[in-house]
């Protein structure tokens, strides 16, 4: 369903992704793990047509996302690492906007929006503005939105970041149910190793733009002689902390929060 062969992405002199290859089978839940700045999000952006690769082959359901953008875009849904909702619109309007862009016909659109908003327990709040939502509600809305056009593949880039254990648990239950019932292929990244172990059938670990290991959680543990996936991860990627500079994006967000009279990091 997803095939990546010798993928390279350079930003000027900096190589974000160095010649990686992996396959994800149809109906599989695949976890893509790695420390900050390892190249996870860059890979997802290339898979989802937001970036063009420097070299290498990428295939999404048999299509090349760098060339057949719009065909490829129909096949996947994505939950981005950073928020991507329009906060000035209501939950329902965000869903409807998405449905129109993905050409989901009117009647089916209304039905699916209701079904998904009920599933993610947001139906009662459908007419509230997204700016009034908590972090967890926004996340749930984004996931519901990503599923609206019944994609074959769902990309989840750190979907549980900043969520409480209840919401995380519920989210993964939905993801697994969806995977079982509708055979949706799931490509996820997370920093919570126990989540990856519980949910994913196969795991790849990327570090400094290189895939250092891939296989089932049991494979990775056996390969490193570690007790837990977290230990295996640390053995494979080392224990130095990665420096990541705050992007202009983060600075912007903090600024805007200040403008709205909220402290950075607050609510």
């Amino acid at each position, binding site marked *: 369903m997803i095939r990546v062969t010798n993928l390279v992405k350079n930003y000027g002199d900096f190589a974000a992704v160095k010649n990686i290859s992996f396959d994800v089978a149809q109906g599989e839940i695949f976890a893509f793990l790695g420390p900050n700045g390892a190249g996870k999000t860059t890979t997802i952006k290339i898979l989802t047509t*937001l970036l063009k690769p420097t070299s290498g082959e990428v295939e999404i359901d048999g299509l090349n996302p760098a060339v057949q953008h719009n065909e490829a875009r129909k096949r996947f849904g994505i939950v981005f690492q950073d*928020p*991507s909702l*329009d*906060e000035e*619109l209501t939950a329902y309007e965000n869903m409807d*906007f998405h449905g129109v*862009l993905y050409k989901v016909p009117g009647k089916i659109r209304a039905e699916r929006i209701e079904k998904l908003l009920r599933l993610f327990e947001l139906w009662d709040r459908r007419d509230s503005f997204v700016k009034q939502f908590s972090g967890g509600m926004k996340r749930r809305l984004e996931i519901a939105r990503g599923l609206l056009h019944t994609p074959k593949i769902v990309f989840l880039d750190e979907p549980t970041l900043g969520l409480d254990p209840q919401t995380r648990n519920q989210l993964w239950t939905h993801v697994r149910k969806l995977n079982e019932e509708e055979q949706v292929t799931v490509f996820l990244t997370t920093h919570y190793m126990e989540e990856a172990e519980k949910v994913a059938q196969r795991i790849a670990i990327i570090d400094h733009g290189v895939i250092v290991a891939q296989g089932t959680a049991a494979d990775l543990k056996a390969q490193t002689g570690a007790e837990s996936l977290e230990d295996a991860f640390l053995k494979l990627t080392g224990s130095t902390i990665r420096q990541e500079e705050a992007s*202009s994006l983060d600075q912007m967000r903090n600024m805007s929060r200040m403008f709205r009279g909220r402290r950075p990091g607050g609510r």
Partner: protein
Amino acid sequence: MNAVYILWLRQVKRYFRSRPRIIASLGQPLLFLVALGFGFGPIFQRAGQGSYLQFLAPGVIGMTILFTAIFSGIELIWDRQFGFLKETMVAPVPRVYIMAGRTLGGATVALFQGAIVILICFAAGFRVTSFSGVPAAVLFMILVAVMFTALGTAVASLLSDFQGFQLVMNFLVMPIFFLSGALFPLAGLPKALAITASLDPLTYGVDGLRGALIGQAFYAGSLDTLVLVVIASILVIAGAYLFSRIQL
């Protein structure tokens, strides 16, 4: 086509929901109208040019559309920073449609804003000399709105954050406004200023409006229209091109 509509609708909804923004953006035109319109009125009169308020009102309408349109285009940076742009960029819709929807939405917002300022001008004492010019005035307003929304989008496509915003304001928007003949008559200008004004697209928008509303145009209405149509087309194409090249 539905994609164009829904993007248009989003811009318009956002506009009508942010009432503080509507009110705030009316402060500036009001100030220009009152301070300059009444302040320079007596001198303008003594110089034998008639009522400065009459002369200034089309300029202030043009200014309002210019600012609102550029800001609507620049809102793209906002969407990029807050992530919503990604949602539209991964959608299976040609980017030209996304650009078209945004531009039409921004232009609609700018037109509304322009219409409100016309009402304010009326309240201040501005009078249209012949109502037969009103359709032409609306046409000029639409052209100015589309042109500058596309310019805003084009510029915003090149900027990844707000660092460059002040630059755009001081070296693009302000000069376009002040050098356009929105505030002064084009006849009898020093040569350098006359040339600069003739290169400024807003000049033709304001001139066209003046011709349509109060019958005092410097250029022929057909020339104003032609210049605006050509420049608006170029900017829409440039904006669409730059927008389609955005990588996130």
